[in-house]
């Protein structure tokens, strides 16, 4: 067998194997694609429902969205989705992500739910890299700390109180971890400030066609 035919032969065999394995992956992808989409939606809805229980709204939460992009207060590095909960067209809450850029090890991504009057319905940690056993008490599975934000607002908690106790505020820090709660408190405060700034636009219906149909 000459070198030329050997090369061609090998190339053909390799591409045959590549074809077979790719076909296998493509097949499995076809089978699982809708299920993956479904699990993702389910998971997202479950995490949103933790902030706003399903009984409090009756719109299609996952479809009533708004794209927000704000670097100064929310520190979002790319456009993110905000979800609006409504009950019989009445605004119940808006849920949107906010990033705490100054965690102990990197960014902490939070999800906040704010009611129309500017009161927090709840805060959850989406992702973080804080120290296990110390800073990770911000997770709801690890401690109750994250629940202190519920019902807080800019009007019932003064701007100077939006700090951990060590800095003269009213939020607890953790033993051995002050930086993490400090970052989270600041981020939640920023989210409320952002809401104050944007509250007129955050609940607007998303689809402009329905707006233009109005006389």
């Amino acid at each position, binding site marked *: 067998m000459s070198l030329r035919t050997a090369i061609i032969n*090998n190339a053909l*065999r*390799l591409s045959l*194997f590549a074809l077979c*394995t*790719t076909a296998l992956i493509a097949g499995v992808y076809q089978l*699982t694609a809708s299920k993956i989409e479904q*699990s993702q939606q389910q998971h997202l809805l479950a995490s949103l429902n933790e902030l706003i229980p399903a009984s409090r709204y009756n719109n299609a939460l996952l479809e009533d969205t708004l794209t927000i992009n704000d670097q100064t207060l929310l520190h979002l590095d790319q456009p993110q989705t905000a979800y609006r909960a409504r009950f019989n067209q009445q605004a119940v809450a808006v849920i949107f992500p906010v990033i705490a850029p100054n965690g102990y090890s990197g960014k902490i991504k939070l999800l906040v739910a704010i009611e129309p009057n500017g009161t927090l319905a709840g805060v959850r940690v989406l992702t973080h890299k804080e120290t*296990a*056993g110390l800073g990770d008490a911000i997770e709801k599975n690890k401690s109750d700390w994250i629940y202190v934000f519920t019902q807080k607002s800019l009007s019932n908690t003064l701007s100077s109180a939006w700090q951990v106790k060590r800095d003269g505020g009213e939020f607890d820090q953790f033993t051995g971890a002050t930086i993490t709660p400090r970052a989270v408190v600041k981020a939640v405060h920023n989210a409320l400030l952002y809401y104050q700034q944007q509250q007129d636009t955050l609940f607007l219906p998303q689809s402009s066609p329905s707006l233009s149909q109005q006389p």
Partner: protein
Amino acid sequence: MSENIYQKIAIDGLWRNNTATVQLLGLCPLLACSNSVVNALGLGLATMLALTASNAAVSLARNYIPNTLRLPIFVLIIASFVSCIELLMHAYTYQLYQALGIFIPLIVTNCALLGRAEAFASKHNTRLAAFDGLMVGLGFLLVLVLLGAMRELLGNGTLLANMHLLFGESARSWTVAIADYKKFLFFILPPSAFVGLGFIIAAKNIVDEQLKKRQQAKKMQNVNIGSKRVRTTGHIS
């Protein structure tokens, strides 16, 4: 000796040539995903499945793989099975998929898989190759789960927490927790995996030594019996 080929494969995979405690292959996922039983079990099962499937496929195709091309083709086969497993986990065990993160696709780089494909599957028939993959994978899985249980128990004071990520809602109640356990941070953090694995290897070596001693004692007995017989037939050298 008296063990047939299946016994030999099983003993090799589970004990004598265990991937994690003897060959020390695939340590990166072993150390990273052993902080709880559910993570360990999830990654262990995925690895075992990938190993069995890739071994079987390599063995099936072994007559069509030219020697010069074997490594790229093995990698291709392994990578495709791991991708399929990743897709399946993404679909059916979504939260576990998120918890294990990058370590599922990284199964491709687990040397144990390529090692078994090269050393065993490419030289044996499909049934033996699949069995070998299953046993080697099971050996890896058992060490991973043992380490996970150890770290979860000592670090968090729980056992089998969050098993619903893998087995559905009914498994939520499997958790066993030590009341009022203060967390032992060291065992949650990665370095404890090294220490834990060290202890597991040490324990295995102790057991091996004991077995060896016992076997030697038996041999000595046999020698004594044998020498008696030799004496009676008068063949003393």
